Each structure stands twice: as C-alpha cells, then as structure tokens.
C-alpha cells in the first residue's frame, strides 16, 4: 500500500484521459447518446475499448433529466455486457470520480471510467431548483437559484471580497469577450447580479479514464496523479451560514493537501462570478495561479458534468507539461457542498 494511502489521501491513482461533448444550449441527443460519444472519445486515444473498463461510476440527476431512474439507460453507453462493476451517484461526475478513486485503491482492478451528464435545457431551473431545498421551510418559498446566488453575492460584496466591477471582469475573462463599463451599464436581473454574472444553460457530458499507477504509466507519458481528494458539506439553510465564507471548501482543500506545494492552475466550479472570487479568496490563491483558464462554468455549465470538466481541465494542465493543479466542484444552494481534487505530475 503506497504511503499516500496511509495518510488517507489516496494511493497511486491517475487520470489518463477525458473527453467532453460539444457544449450546447440545447441538443436533441439523449443523455445516453451523449455518453456513448464521449466514452468512446475518452477511450480511443488510449487504445482502450469498453472491454478494458473494470469499473464504472456515473454521475447524473433525475430531476435534471426529468425522469426517475434516468441513469439506468446509460448502462447502454458504458457497454455493460458482460456485466460491469458499476455504481451511480446522484451527484456531479466529480463525486463519481471520488468513488472510482476509492474503488481503484482497493487494488484488485486497474481501469475505471467515470462520467457526468446532464441536459439542463429540457427543464426550467427556476422550477426545478426550489425542489432541492429543505422541503418544509425553504422549498415552499419557491426561491430560484438566481435569488440564492444574489443573496450570497451581496454578502461577498459587503465583505469586500468582490465588487460589481471585479465580477464583470471575471465574466469577461471567462468568456473572452465584453467591456467592463458596457456590462456594468446593463440592468440587474437580480440585484447585484447582471446577465453576465450568471451561467449559461448547457447540455453536455464528460467522461474520464482513471487508472492505477503502473497501468497509467503504460497508457500515457504524463498521467495526472490524484494526490489529494476530499469533499465536505455544510449546514443546508443559507441563512444559517456566513455566506461570505466557504468553510467546507477550506476543509476539503486542507484535507486534499493544497498547502503541500504550489499550484499553477485552479479550475473552480463557479457558476456565478462572485463565487469564483469567493472561492479564490477562501483558497488563498495567489496572483500567480491561473484561475479557470478553460472559461469555467460561466462559459459552459453542463450541470452534473461541470465539476468533472473542471477536473478534466486541471488534468489537461498536468498532462500537457504542468506540475500541479487544483479542481473544485460544488453542489447545493450557495456553495453548500464542496469538493477539491489536486492533480500533479508525480504521485
């Protein structure tokens, strides 16, 4: 058993490749079709087929898909015949990766494929997301995600971590377009949020191939080793939390060993501009860290895959020559639950 495992941070497990679908406002393809494409795309460059997969873990959400047991048909996409060791989480694919990371450490298998998938275009977020809230005290209010995000944005602005200008700058950098003064001249859609502070609605999926160390080194020249992985949750009700802080992100980052060395890139699942500024503050990211070079969730937000894409982009940084990167995923109102994954060029 590798020494990292003794520290509870994982053994010699690495990301060896991933793929994502085109990120679109709406696709007519089913989630199963999206996954069919993206799993094939992730495996092919590695010279692997579905027969090589020892374990699969899928991440998706029935309420996003609009159907109970929606993940069951996705078994067709992983090619579960002969049957596969398999699991499914009602969480972002980032957590599916977490389960696969644990499973691979058991040592009896070598290759796992994890996915995240969602087609948000088929539903109305303002109707769906209130159902994620405490069913007795919060759901009946019918408050939508923009409302909760605006509450948090106000807290973040009040604490001096962000202002409307710095938020607009995040939007411009993420989308590689726009002018700060022009954006700030637009109307609020939920004060203090303007259109540019808000994520797009995206349909999409991502698949990632993970392998135990020796196998990973045979598959690719530079695997992205998962050197730290942790996730934490907080109290659910946003009114019982300090919304200008994210203690669960801080805890997860500490447990994942963020402080063990410098990182070059941080891919944060910040669907709203103020979330990126808050998370960067909580993680104490220096000016030398490139935040969301992919454009982040503000450019493409395939819910249930958004977090896995962050880890994919962080892995890309390492696989293309970088040394160490951080990826973050989140779930729940006002960043209730947060995950931190650290990837590096050495185990």
């Amino acid at each position, binding site marked *: *058993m590798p020494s990292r*495992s003794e520290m*509870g941070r*994982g*053994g010699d497990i690495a990301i060896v490749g991933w793929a994502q679908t085109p990120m679109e406002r709406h696709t007519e393809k089913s989630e199963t079709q999206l996954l069919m494409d993206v799993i094939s795309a992730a495996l092919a460059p590695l010279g692997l087929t579905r027969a090589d997969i020892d374990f*699969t873990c899928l991440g998706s*959400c*029935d*309420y996003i898909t*609009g*159907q*109970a*047991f929606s*993940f*069951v*048909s996705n*078994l*067709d996409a992983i090619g*579960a*015949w*002969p*049957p*596969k*060791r*398999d*699991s*499914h*989480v*009602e*969480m972002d694919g980032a*957590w599916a990766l977490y*389960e696969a990371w*644990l499973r691979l*450490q*058991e*040592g*009896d298998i070598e290759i796992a494929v994890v996915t995240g998938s969602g087609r948000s275009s088929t539903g109305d977020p303002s109707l*769906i*997301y209130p*159902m*994620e*809230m*405490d*069913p007795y005290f*919060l*759901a009946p209010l019918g408050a939508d995600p923009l409302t909760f995000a605006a509450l948090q944005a106000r807290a973040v602005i009040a604490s001096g971590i962000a202002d409307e200008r710095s938020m607009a700058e995040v939007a411009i950098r993420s989308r590689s377009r726009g002018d700060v003064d022009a954006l700030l001249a637009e109307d609020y859609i939920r004060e203090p949020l303007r259109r540019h502070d808000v994520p797009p609605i995206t349909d999409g999926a991502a698949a990632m191939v993970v392998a135990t160390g020796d196998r990973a080194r045979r598959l690719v020249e530079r695997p992205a080793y998962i050197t730290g992985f*942790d*996730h*934490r*949750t*907080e*109290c*659910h*009700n946003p009114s019982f939390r300090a919304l200008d802080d994210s*203690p669960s992100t801080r*805890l997860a980052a500490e447990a994942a060993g963020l402080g063990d060395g410098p990182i070059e890139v941080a891919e944060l699942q910040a669907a709203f501009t103020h979330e990126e500024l808050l998370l960067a503050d909580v993680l104490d990211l220096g000016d030398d860290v490139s935040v969301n070079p992919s454009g982040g969730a503000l450019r493409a937000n395939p819910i249930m895959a958004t977090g896995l894409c962050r880890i994919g982009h962080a892995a890309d940084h390492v696989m293309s020559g970088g040394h160490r990167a951080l990826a973050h995923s989140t*779930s*729940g109102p006002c960043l*209730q*639950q947060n995950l931190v994954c650290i990837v590096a060029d050495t185990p």
Partner: protein
Amino acid sequence: MSTRPCAVVGVGQTHHKSRRLDVSFGGLVREAVFRALDDARMTMADIDAVILGKAPDLFEGVMKPELYLSDALGAVGKPMFRVHTAGSVGGTTAIVAASHIQVGKHRTVLAVAFEKQSEGNAQFALGSGRGASLGAGGAFAPFIRAYIHRSRAPEHIGWKVAVKDRLNALKNPYAHLRIEDISIEKVKASPMMWEPIRFLESCPSSDGACAMVLTDEQGGDAAAADGRPPAWILGASSRSEPASFPGRDPVRPAAALQCAADVYNQAGITDPRRQIDTAELYVPFSWHEPIWLEAFGLADEGDGWKLVEDGTTELGGSLPINASGGVLSSNPIGASGLLRFAEAANQVRGAAGEHQVDGAKVAIGMAYGANSQYFSTWAVGRSLQPFG
C-alpha cells in the same frame, strides 16, 4: 482482498409503516441513525463521513435530499456522499461506505438509507415518471412466469414464501406488515395483481430508514473486546447489466451470477449452500426467493423452489432466508437493500433478537434493482476467518 478489514459495529432501523406522518424526513433518518449509533456505543462525533442512499428523488419530490439532510445526519463539516443505483442502492451504499474504510480513507463511516414513500406516488416514479405504469410487479411478472415455466415449480411455492416471510415478520418488532392470521389460504384468496403474483405475494410500500456504522479493524476488535461482536465483511461486490437485448436472461441474470461469484471468491466460499448459514435476499415478490436462491448458488438451477417446498428456507430450516421478514414485510425501497445487508450483519453478530438464526457465523445480504439489472451483495462473518 488486499484491502483493510472492515466491521459493522452498529445497526439501526425505524419502525416501518405505510405512513410515518409523525416524523419529517430528517426525523425518520435520525430515528435509524441514533439506534445505529447507540448500538455502536458512539455519537455523531465519532463519524468521519456519511454515505446516503435512496431510490429516485421523484419518490418524495425532494431533489438531492442529502443536501437538506446534512444537518439531521450530523454531516456538517464532513464528507457527505449520495449513492443511487435503483433498488440495489441500499446495498451499494454499504459497499461504498466500506470502501472508504477498506482503503484507509476514513476510520468510521455512517451508511444511511431511507424512503418515505407516503410523500409521493411510488408507482408513478417506478414508471420513470411517465404515468400509465405497470409498476414493479408488472415489470417482474413476465420473469416470474418464465421461471415457473422453466423450473415447473407448483404454484403454491409463491404462497409458501409469502406466508413464511410474514411469519418471520411477527418476530421482528420493526416490520411493517404484521399479519397475525397469515396462511396459505389467505394468500391464495388475495386478489390477483400481475399474473401469477397475488396481492399478498407482493411487498408493501413503506416509510422507513436504516443506518449502519462501519469501522476499521481496531474499532471492530474494540467492540468485540467489549462483548459486542461485530460483523466482519468477508466480500462485497456490485454488478450491472443493460435492461434489454437479445440473449439477456432476467431470470438468471449474468450480473447476479458474477456478483455472487465475486463475493464468494473474496470470502473463500466454495460451497455456498453449506458454508452460508443464512441469507437476506431482496425478495419484493414471493417468487424471487427461488429465483435468487438459484442465481446466488444456494440451490442448483431449477431446484430453488424445492428448498421452499421442503421448509429449508424457514426460520427453523437449515438455510433460513429472510428471517427478518424481508422486503415482503417492509419495503422503504431505497432502504430495503441496506436492511438486507444490516439484517445479515445482525445475524452474525448474534443481534437479531427473536428472529436470530441459531449459530449463524456467515450470512449474505443481497439487493437488486431496476429491471433485474443492478446487483449488490456482501458476505459477512462472525470472524474474518470463519472457515478456519
């Protein structure tokens, strides 16, 4: 396996009922959690991570309820993980929880599963929310007819299983259905639901929860030293296969056979019928008992029904199945799998109370889901080397 030992040191469950109007979702899960923590002589402070399993969120109309339940489950500041693998989810929840300990990520993990079916319309959700659903019975009846056709089992086999499990339930204080005057005649006279499944051969729809405390070798040894024997995990596995294609056999699913073979291989079980003392099998409709006896190697192919016929699977028989009363007596769907795993653990802990199988040293818990596609199974033992 090359993994670290993992032990079950606490088990708790709610009283299962059609409607638990006396508790909220949070109240329901806490009832099971506190029983499990009390059983383990622990508090929430001893828990490193919480793993929550339940079946589709459409059952209750609460999306990703683990977010709201974080407080009730004492998960604030901890990892909180949500599993959903259809009907097998309760079993998979235990397996994922164990994985955290087996690789050394955490020392002590709480596995929780629940369903509060009275909050919604389970049959609607079981039809993927499309309405006009046949329900689970409608989906499984063709498989059962195929089993009867192949095995030439007489029709009273289903009735016998239904009576046996309801008699067992009378010895389980948490069971939902308590039918004091259950009899073959009563089952036979109950309405036909989905040919050949009669009403009393069907599982109920329950509100309920189950919780389990899993810990490492040190924790398991400490419990044993304190006179509270743990259940040691001897093997665990999950397998899935697609819903439908030519050549698939839903009566004897390849995923079930592989899942069983994997668990037995890990556990060193070479003769399941002889080495396993009792099993908690996921039997939502009576005929699934002989079907799973065969798929899990507890009977030869075509002979499962004979173990029902001759009383082998009764509480006093040589291979008691579902001594707790099983899914036929309590069915909070998302929790039903964890209940199977928990009841198996309690049997080898000697903690099953009135429905204890005398001298049980090795037990299996099994759950399945979707269109007989998702399988989760574990074998637990009174010791890590129960076969010497």
